[in-house]
């Protein structure tokens, strides 16, 4: 079932003293439930912009984006916010844990924007997810008391806590050493599979990209599918 589809999406930005800069050009991409997709590209190739468009944090300049078959452009800002909270989970390269809050509070934060059981039982739910990523015993630790790998695991738990249908990971191992990065990616892959969520990973590391089922290259804002045999 198609969750998100991009049809001929472009993204340009106006520059004050020169022609508009094209960041994404003619992107066609479909993400369905359970997909494992990787997008590899160099710095400045438009990877993060693509992820922001997929996460409804940014809007296409032209082309169309559909969420469950409905054009996202017809959604209000509040609707997009609610979809983002309910159906999407973000994992950032720099973890972006909220300072001054414990691991448990960080994981519970997205549940502050939920309703019903998810809101009222947020601490219990957050602890369960922390347990799933192996950090239940560090629930009361502050971010600065955690290693890089642990911080990213907390971030993964936070992305999964509302049970999203799509996880968007922007260079999730970019701030980790190779060994820790592989462990974190293995964990991310495992918990995403367990939850049945689609996973779109943006990375410049081919080894990380190999974990996905479908592979894309982003070069100069143009997205192209990569032959599976090339990857292996």
């Amino acid at each position, binding site marked *: 079932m198609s969750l998100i589809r991009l049809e001929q999406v472009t993204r340009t930005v106006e520059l004050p003293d020169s022609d508009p800069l094209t960041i994404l050009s003619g992107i066609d991409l479909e993400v369905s439930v359970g997909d494992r997709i990787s997008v590899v590209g160099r710095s400045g190739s438009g990877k993060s912009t693509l992820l922001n468009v997929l996460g409804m944090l940014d809007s296409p300049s032209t082309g169309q984006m559909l969420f469950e078959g409905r054009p996202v452009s017809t959604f209000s800002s509040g609707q997009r916010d609610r979809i*983002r909270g309910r159906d999407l989970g973000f994992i950032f390269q720099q973890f972006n844990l909220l300072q001054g809050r414990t691991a448990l509070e960080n994981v519970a934060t997205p549940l502050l924007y939920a309703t019903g059981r998810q809101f009222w039982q947020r601490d219990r739910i957050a602890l369960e997810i922390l347990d799933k990523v192996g950090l239940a015993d560090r629930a009361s630790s502050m971010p600065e008391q955690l290693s890089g790998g642990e911080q990213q695991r907390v971030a993964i738990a936070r992305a999964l806590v509302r049970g999203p249908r799509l996880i968007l990971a922007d260079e999730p191992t970019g701030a980790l050493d190779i060994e820790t990065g592989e462990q974190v990616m293995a964990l991310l892959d495992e918990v995403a599979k367990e939850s049945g969520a689609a996973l779109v990973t943006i990375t410049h590391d081919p080894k990380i990209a190999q974990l996905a089922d479908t592979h894309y290259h982003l070069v100069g804002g143009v997205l192209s599918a990569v032959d599976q045999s090339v990857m292996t």
Partner: protein
Amino acid sequence: MNAFFTGIVGAFVEAAQELRIHRTRVLLSLVGVAVAVCALTVVVGAGAIAQQATVEISERFGGRPASLALQVNMADGTQPPKEMMDKAWADALDRYAISYASRNTQASQNVQFVDGVSMVQVQAVDPEFGPMRRILLDDGVWFADDDAQRLAPALVVNEVFWQRLGAPALNTNPTVTLLGADQNALGVVIGVYPTNMWDTEPAMYMLYDGYVALADTEAQANLWTEYSLWVPPEIAEELRVSLESDFSGALGEGATATVYRSDIGAQGQEDPFLAVKLVIGGIAGLVLVLGALGLVNISLVTLKQRIREIGVRRSFGATSGRIFFAVMMESVVGTIVAGAVGVVAAILIVRSPWLIEVLGQGMLTDLPPFPIEAAIIGMVAATAVGALAGLLPALVAVRVKVIDAIRF
């Protein structure tokens, strides 16, 4: 409904978390608000006491609202014969069922102290004069109706007088000799009233009839009596006109009766303390504005450090409305707590005996309760300051671009 309710609770939870995490910053910024609210509340509360003191002091001279003063002059400028005037006065009080009325005359009386004879200022009044003019006693009691029957006249003396007597206990019925031209009399001190700072001479109150009985013929002839009444304000004007007419008629041809309002409320102003209130309110408002500016300043500076956090929250699904409300709530929750602290501090300050003594100048009979409006004004001001101080940062927070914020 459920989403709305959880949204409200969630915003409060977020605000509480923010306050906990940034407690040092919050404490520093809220000290200013607490001080401002405390100052505002103290100014309003202390203003009420000062106003009451001013009212009471003015009422001691001019009477309480509505006080009427009666003056009657004959054609030759003298007062009417005492017997005629006393009868007309008694008839008028009876006719209009006036409970609070007093004759009042000022004279001097030689008094024998242990260290010699002193001329003492005496004010001769009726028993109702005490409540009419808020006479405050440090010790003892004011005159009662049956004090007029005493053979030894009752005296209510000032503190200087009482000290000259050696500050005797009043339950020992201390006496003093009042020297007359023809005869002496023994006066009994039944009450002591406080002396103003500037008053260093002994003085006393006597009952009007007792003083007249003691005065010699010459003193009686020179007696100039004022007549005062304390009546409900709503009938004051009607009564004033009637009394003028009645007394002019009762005292015969050539008599002119003049009745006028003597209390401060009759001086033409709707609120005689309006100017004082405006000045006090202006100062309090200024203090609060300064506190609010400090809070806005700190909030804006802090917000710059929180832009990434706002972006991350938006990526979790926080709507712009929710971000706006949460940032506002941080400010409002903080200032409400600061306001409560400020109001409690203000109550402690305003009710301190030292401040009451200073503001009341030691002359307050009716200490006003802590004005509830001062506490309400303090809390409302704190909440309003919180909302206003939170508004600007909240607007800035809403305008943050999520993508830029995450990369910030």
